[in-house]
């Protein structure tokens, strides 16, 4: 079953055709990677999924519902979580609190007035947050203030915040950019583990070919605003179009 379908999406910024008739479909439970050279329109496309940008034409349908025109919190509430490229965490709060907030949002919806409920009583949410933090390897830092963490840990915290919501679709924007090789491998393991154990559908935007080919079930190659190829990883490497647009220029 296709959980996310993008059809005929166009987006123009002044004279620049950033997205040109983009079509994409992501099947449930799969890991779908979007790759492409710089300026190919990857970020623009992602922003169309999450309500930051409205395409000029075309449709983005998730689980039978159109995502276009929805507010960011509504998109999250239908089951699309996003992991940001630069960590956007709550720097004044503790690591545990950072993860409990999305967990609460997942359970309670977009708004719940519970000013007299004690945080201590939220044991289920707490357990769930700690569980995810263990998965991601931050269990010994739960009481740390988020601002004092290392950059790599912040990225992992970002991921935990997305994962704790048990999303139907997890959007990852360059999850390993700027990470060391060891951290990258670790992240790949975590994502693989989660993909297998929780069955979360993921869309990954990534530069690092190593990450893409270790994780993806399917790859879409974006160049100059258009999807030039959509295929399984095995067929991507040998594809001449891809080599011309992307691999040929970087290797």
């Amino acid at each position: 079953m296709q959980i996310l379908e993008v059809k005929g999406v166009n987006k123009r910024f002044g004279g620049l055709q950033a997205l040109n008739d983009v079509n994409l479909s992501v099947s449930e439970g799969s890991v779908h990677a979007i790759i492409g050279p710089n300026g190919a329109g990857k970020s623009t496309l992602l922003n169309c999924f999450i309500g930051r940008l409205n395409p000029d034409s075309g449709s983005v349908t998730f689980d039978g519902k159109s995502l276009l025109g929805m507010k960011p919190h509504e998109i999250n509430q239908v089951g699309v979580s996003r992991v940001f490229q630069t960590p956007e965490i709550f720097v004044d709060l503790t690591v545990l609190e950072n993860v409990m907030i999305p967990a609460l949002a997942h359970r309670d919806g977009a708004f719940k007035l519970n000013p007299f409920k004690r945080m201590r009583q939220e044991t289920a949410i707490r357990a769930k947050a700690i569980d995810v933090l263990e998965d991601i390897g931050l269990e010994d830092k739960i009481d740390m203030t988020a601002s004092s963490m290392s950059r790599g840990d912040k990225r992992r915290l970002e991921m935990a915040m997305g994962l704790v919501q048990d999303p139907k679709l997890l959007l990852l924007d360059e999850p390993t950019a700027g990470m060391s090789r060891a951290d990258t491998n670790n992240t790949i393991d975590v994502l693989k583990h989660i993909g297998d154990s929780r069955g979360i559908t993921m869309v990954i935007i990534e530069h690092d070919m190593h990450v893409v080919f270790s994780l993806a079930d399917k790859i879409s190659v974006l160049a100059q605003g258009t999807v030039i190829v959509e295929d399984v990883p095995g067929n991507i490497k040998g594809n001449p179009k891809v080599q011309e647009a992307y691999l040929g220029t970087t290797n």
Partner: protein
Amino acid sequence: MNNSKYSDSALLLFFIIMVVAGPFLLAPFGGSYPDLLQKFAIFGIFAIGFNILFGLTGYLSFGHAVFLGVGSYGAVWMFKLLSYNVLPALVVAVVVAGFFSVVIGYISLRRSGIYFSILTLAFAQMMFNVAYSVATPITNGETGLQIYNDDPQWLQGADSPLTTNLFGLKMNEVFWRPEFLGFEAQFNVGYYFCAFFLIIAFYLALRITRSPFGMMLRAIKTNQNRLNFTGVSTRPYMLAAFVISGMYAGLAGGLWACMDPLAGAERMQWTASGEVVLMTILGGAGTMLGPVLGAGFIKYFEAIFSKINDQVLHSWFAFMPDGMENVMVAIVHPFVGKGWHLTLGLLFMMIVIFLPGGLIGGLTSLGRVLTGRGRKSKG
């Protein structure tokens, strides 16, 4: 958070003891008289409520005195229409303030940051004009709303007291005047009535801060955008915080009217709104005890400074040679008596420039330096 149950209970207990012992504690400082003690409690409530909005969410409202003002008006109207009993007055004060904060909050919260501050300031000025001239039949304009002999007071019993009371217990009654360290301490019904609400207000604020709701508010302060992408609709959270703090202000305004059954437009002026901002940041925005401490500090020094006149100054500097004495009096004169506002303004700037964490923040870092530990206190 693990040991917050223990430390929160201790904090609450400490707070209750300080409030109940207030008349004793302030006696040596010449602050143990009903009027001042009541102001401590009333403005403590006001500042605690303001802190729920500003301290937790970081939204700086410049119009919170409006809710205090409408609370006072609502309470006085209850005295005029029903009786001198304070309970209906307080209920109406909170409800009216809640209503106004829903309307003003709904509109102002369409924007954030500076815009929000400007909008609340504009609303404050508008409501001041409304109270001062537009709605004169309701507010009695510049004279202020007060109780007259020909007011209906439908529920006023024949033998109930002709002053604000709780089922006959008069608010202005001083029931005990012990000597304490050579100073007179005055125990007043009105103060303990206000103190009761102050403790409840403090307890509720503590609960709110420690609740999931409170955590969302703190997350709004840190990164509102991210919270939206996390699936939280921040606007209703903001509105709820705004209305809660507006109702706190209404309670404070109602209590003020209960202590002294008057209401005037000047309670809603931007200077009054600025004062509660100052109380909060002086004590330490976002801390539990800070706002109350700031409110007490400001009200105490207001009372002290306003009383100092040139005669007092001359007696202070009498030990100096005549010329020096006059110079010193001339230097200090602009800051005391009627010049209290100048001191207030300077204090405002000093706090923002040098002590952004307020008194509590300053004490915490001092404590950290002294004990050599990096423990983060939430006092």
